[in-house]
């Protein structure tokens, strides 16, 4: 009886373990205890997409981030449909929408049939109210990520400005 019961739920347990392993490697959820990861898993929305199905479109309001558990997703720039990135298992996208409801800057389309986990702003805020410690950990990680990106963006802007100046100098020199 036990083995029948065990077999019935074996697949689901394996899937759950896989999801927890994927979550553990996501920067936002790093350093969380196994118990905290289970709490996170409970608020996530498991969604299945067919190949070529749109996950979200550029310009639409973002409500949260997605984590790829299985399959691959193309991040496209509209209207030309240029592939900006191809994301696979364990990668994530749309995390800025966790902090603020802003329009999506690119479209996400499933390249292969895939399973993603959605983590949404409302769920994060609810979690922060119910479990402030856990919420703070996640928000801190998110803020650090955004901070690092800002620093890297500033660095890129600085480099581009330098390049622009050298180009201008070359132009005037000629």
């Amino acid at each position, binding site marked *: 009886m036990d083995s029948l019961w065990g077999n019935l739920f074996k697949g689901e347990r394996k899937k759950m373990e896989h999801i927890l392993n994927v979550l553990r490697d996501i920067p936002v959820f790093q350093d969380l205890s196994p118990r905290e990861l289970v709490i996170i898993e*409970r608020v996530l*929305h498991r969604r299945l997409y067919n190949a070529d199905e749109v996950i979200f479109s550029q*310009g639409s309001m973002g*409500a*949260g981030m997605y984590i790829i558990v299985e399959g691959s997703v193309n991040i496209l720039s509209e209207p030309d449909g240029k592939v900006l990135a191809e994301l696979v298992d364990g990668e994530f996208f749309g995390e800025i929408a966790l902090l603020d409801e802003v329009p999506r800057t690119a479209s996400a389309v499933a390249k292969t049939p895939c399973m993603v986990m959605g983590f949404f702003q*409302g769920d994060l805020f609810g979690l922060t*109210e*119910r*479990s*402030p410690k856990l919420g703070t950990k996640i928000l801190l990680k998110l803020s650090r990520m955004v901070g690092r990106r800002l620093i890297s963006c500033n660095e890129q802007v600085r480099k581009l400005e330098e390049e622009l100046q050298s180009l201008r100098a070359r132009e005037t020199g000629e």
Partner: protein
Amino acid sequence: MHDLATRLFKFFLTILVLAAVLLLLWRIGNIVKLVVIAALLAYVLDPIVGTFESHGINRGLATTIVLALIVAILSFFAINVMPEIVKELKAVSTGISAGKAGDLIHRIESGIEKNLSFLGIRELDIIEKFQMYSRQAAGLVYGYLLDAVAILTNLLLIIFVMFFFLKDGRGFIKGFISLIPNRYFELALSLIHKTDKQLGSYIRGQFLDSAIIGGLTAIALWSLGIKYFLLLGVVLGISNMVPVIGPIVGSLPAIIMALVQTGNLHIAAYVTAAMFGVQMIDNFIVKPIVVARSVSLHPVIVILAVITGGQLFGIMGMILSVPAVGIVKLVVLEAADNIRKYRYSY
């Protein structure tokens, strides 16, 4: 052509299923009412359970603690306050003091009969009629209160359902969300979160507002020496949940009681002024603070909603009709706003 037939078939099948569900709900109306009450109470109590959770207590235990507290408060109420209310009801039903009130009513009666005889008004017998109606009304409530088995059964059922709504409510909502097609997923999720936020503050605010206003009314009536101040406070507190009509209807019993008890028009005027004062405090101080963003509805809509609710579900329908219309308005507005913002270009 085949496509049209399939769509028509699906449409009629949906209508049929909806009709069957509605019929079933209609047939088990009483249970549905209890489940609705349990869901509403669970919704109101959810932040309290959440507060326990934020202190590291798991949800099951937090729910048990909150419900145990509720049972303790209800038991205290049943033992200490309920007998007082029953006594007050009994007093109302057994005898509106025929003394001073009787004199005043007789004076009014003879005045009407004398001056409006051309309208064919003769022998009004206001006291007799009033006593008959009050006996009927009080008998109904009194009889219901005495039906301990029915109350206990209903209470137990409400608490039982409430426990599961509180403990597993989020799981139910997540299960519902998982049924939404991918295309509408983000839109629906955003809509649910925003509606929940607004609706939560609206319903919790209404409950708190009613408690404050009921308490203020009871204090005001007690200070004016009106006998059944506690019962009248509860009546106004509950009726206050119905905007526009509620406060007026809820104030009437207090004013009538003042007239009947004292037979003094001055006291009745004081009570009217006190009720007016309580409404002023409600509208200018309590509501703006407690009911964060109430759903504003046109008075005509409110009246129509109250009448329809009353026709369909009695007193509970009257109380819940306005919040229900408010919910529909909120959902429609939020949906329209979200559809505008979530430009889906599939």
